[in-house]
């Protein structure tokens, strides 16, 4: 077979392998699936970037462009591939006009009015309020697509400067759109394609142009018109958890840690609201169920801690309660009946049962991270993505309990370790703290793996 003696045995080996492979049955579907999985894993960063940027574009379009000018705006964003960030210098009332879908003639009429006219100031107010909501959305998602520089007065010249809208995402979108033409841009080609398709949809969809309301005061907090899919929610949750885990790992001062944790909890609560389709501003902080708080008190009473430790513990809890506004909110929540503020019954029981299972395991002397993992396994048996997301949320609830629960858990763990007599109290505290951090990191990892499993095809969730 081989003309080359040096390679004869290698060729024989290859031929043997070929025969062996031919004998084996070939599962083409599985093979294609694994290839697809691999490809998706490779494209993951690009896909995530694309998801972020298309979200940014969506927000951008919703808040800046809706009317004939949208075309110019988007063209500027997409075609200026090597320019600066897109900037619009306009007065707030003008932006209010765009927001409310005022016609050009009407705008001309308004322009002729004096600067402090009621109509103008109403419009300006509407725009500013909408933008505030938008910024909340930006903060929540962690994606800054638009910035507003408020208008100012030059004291020397006495000239007014209109407020300015900056769109830092425009550059990114433009780059994505032009990626196919760039060198080494092949990998982004289909993303560019999707982006182009998305822009086309945005341009043609007449529903997007109507942000008209009769009264400026009636303008409710703006939410995205299209519902957020679990994939998107998961992306946000992951970024939040990652940030939190990072913060914990860095050994931040306790106030900052508490703050970070409160942010996470608020984010998760908002996430739950969205998932359930509830839009209630009062529900932002729902981290601790009142029963749980009672239970916590019981727990402290039950465990026969030494007197000084117990007092320190309660002090801790008090301090964390009084530390920020979160504590106040929590107190309020605990006074209100649970039907109003608490999540639905299934959720509640779920959470409670998990807390219970975890505390039982901790009492039995199981290390915190092991206990959390076990509980996660027990609850994580739901196959569909909703189940997985919920399980993940629960897991995060465990991994990062609210600021006034955490000292309790740490104290408990420290107590168990000290009872075992292996370590000193300080070491035990350090170990307990580290365990908490590890669980956070673990949660982030799990969440990330869930995200990679979810479908990211932009057409499906945009």
């Amino acid at each position, binding site marked *: *077979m*081989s*003309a*080359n*003696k*040096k*390679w004869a*045995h*290698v*060729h024989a*080996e*290859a*031929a043997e*392998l*070929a025969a*062996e*492979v*031919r004998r084996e049955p*070939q599962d083409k579907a599985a*093979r294609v699936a*694994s*290839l697809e999985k*691999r490809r998706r894993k*490779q494209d993951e960063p690009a896909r995530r970037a694309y998801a972020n940027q298309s979200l940014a574009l969506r927000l951008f379009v919703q808040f800046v462009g809706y009317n004939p000018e949208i075309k110019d705006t988007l063209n500027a964003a997409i075609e200026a591939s090597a320019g600066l960030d897109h900037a619009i210098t306009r007065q707030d009332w003008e932006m209010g006009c765009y927001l409310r879908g005022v016609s050009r003639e009407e705008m001309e009429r308004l322009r002729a009015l004096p600067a402090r006219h009621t109509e103008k100031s109403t419009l300006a107010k509407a725009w500013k309020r909408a933008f505030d909501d938008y910024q909340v959305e930006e903060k929540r998602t962690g994606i800054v697509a638009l910035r507003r520089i408020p208008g100012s007065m030059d004291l020397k010249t006495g000239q007014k400067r209109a407020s300015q809208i900056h769109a830092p995402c425009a550059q990114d979108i433009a780059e994505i759109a032009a990626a*196919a*033409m760039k*060198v*080494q*841009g*092949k990998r982004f*080609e289909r993303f*560019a*394609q999707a982006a*182009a*398709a998305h822009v086309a949809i945005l341009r043609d969809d007449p529903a997007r142009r109507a942000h008209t309301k009769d009264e400026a005061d009636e303008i409710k907090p703006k939410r995205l018109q299209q519902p957020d899919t679990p994939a998107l929610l998961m992306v946000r949750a992951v970024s939040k958890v990652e940030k939190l885990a990072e913060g914990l790992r860095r050994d931040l001062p306790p106030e900052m840690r508490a703050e970070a944790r409160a942010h996470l909890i608020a984010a998760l609560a908002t996430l739950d609201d969205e998932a359930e389709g509830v839009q209630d501003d009062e529900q932002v902080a729902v981290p601790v169920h009142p029963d749980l708080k009672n239970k916590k008190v019981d727990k402290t009473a039950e465990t026969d801690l030494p007197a000084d430790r117990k007092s320190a513990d309660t002090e801790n809890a008090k301090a964390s309660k009084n530390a920020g506004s979160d504590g106040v909110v929590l107190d309020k929540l605990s006074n209100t009946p649970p039907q109003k503020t608490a999540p639905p019954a299934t959720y509640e029981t779920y959470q409670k049962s998990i807390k219970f299972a975890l505390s039982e395991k901790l009492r039995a002397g199981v290390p915190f991270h092991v206990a959390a993992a076990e509980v996660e396994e027990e609850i994580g048996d739901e196959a569909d993505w909703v189940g997985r997301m919920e399980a993940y949320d629960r897991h995060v609830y465990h991994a990062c309990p609210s600021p006034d629960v955490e000292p309790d858990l740490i104290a408990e763990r420290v107590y168990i370790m000290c009872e075992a007599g292996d370590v000193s109290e300080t070491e035990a505290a350090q170990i307990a703290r580290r365990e908490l951090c590890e669980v956070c990191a673990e949660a982030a990892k799990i969440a990330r793996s869930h995200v990679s499993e979810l479908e990211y095809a932009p057409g499906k969730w945009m």
Partner: protein
Amino acid sequence: MAAALALLRPLPSVAPVRLDLVPREFEALDNTLSSFLDALPDPAKARLYPEHIGDDLINDAILTCAFAYFSLAERDAAKVAEVYEGFTPARLHTLGLRSAPGEVARIFAACAVGERFCDQSGFVAPLYNDGDGMKIYAPSHGLVFPARRGGLTRAWLHYKHPADRAPRWVSSSHLPKGCKVRPSIHVARSEFAARSGVCLLVSHALEAEEAAAGAFVSAVALNGVTPSALVSQLQEEWPDLRAVTISLDEVSPYLLRALQAADLKVRCA
């Protein structure tokens, strides 16, 4: 006169003939055609730039164009034939082996590339521009061999001497407006693996050519690419590849793991 008048008269209007029914003898053909049309990609999912020629194709054309101006010295060919069995100088020349080009050859090649493709410095590896027009960087001695994958030249490999077992990539990243190399495997006789689903993995390009010569096997040169790049390039080349026979001096566990993770059967020869 009458004839002229007849010409001026409007022509009788003829109703357009519509062939709604497909003649019976073409029915089968029509079915085939419609199934063929169904199989075509959905226009909504079609490429963004359908007639866009990819970078790979352009890079291949540039590198091939430049290579036309390089020659293979007879003594070099003889030395290579001593090391690698079964090669004649003509065969080596056909495969693309060249001696390191001199100054004149490089200038000629740069002019040819510039004339045909304009200034492409910064886009392909051996090109650079030091402010005095586009130039081609090439090693001053040794041998140059093109690494080919998917029938396209991806980059050049520099062999310091014929027995060099670790050739380097010809890059211009160290020069003004140069470009980094995109490392690629080298595939010799690709057609066999497409059928058998098995390929032979060796260390470098000339070795791959030697291994594939006169045998019914496709050989792949690793060329020092990373395991993950190897796997993705293999999958791009042969989506149905099922097994790899490895004949390397040293087999890295990372390489094995990457191949196994891609559902490839691995056998060391």
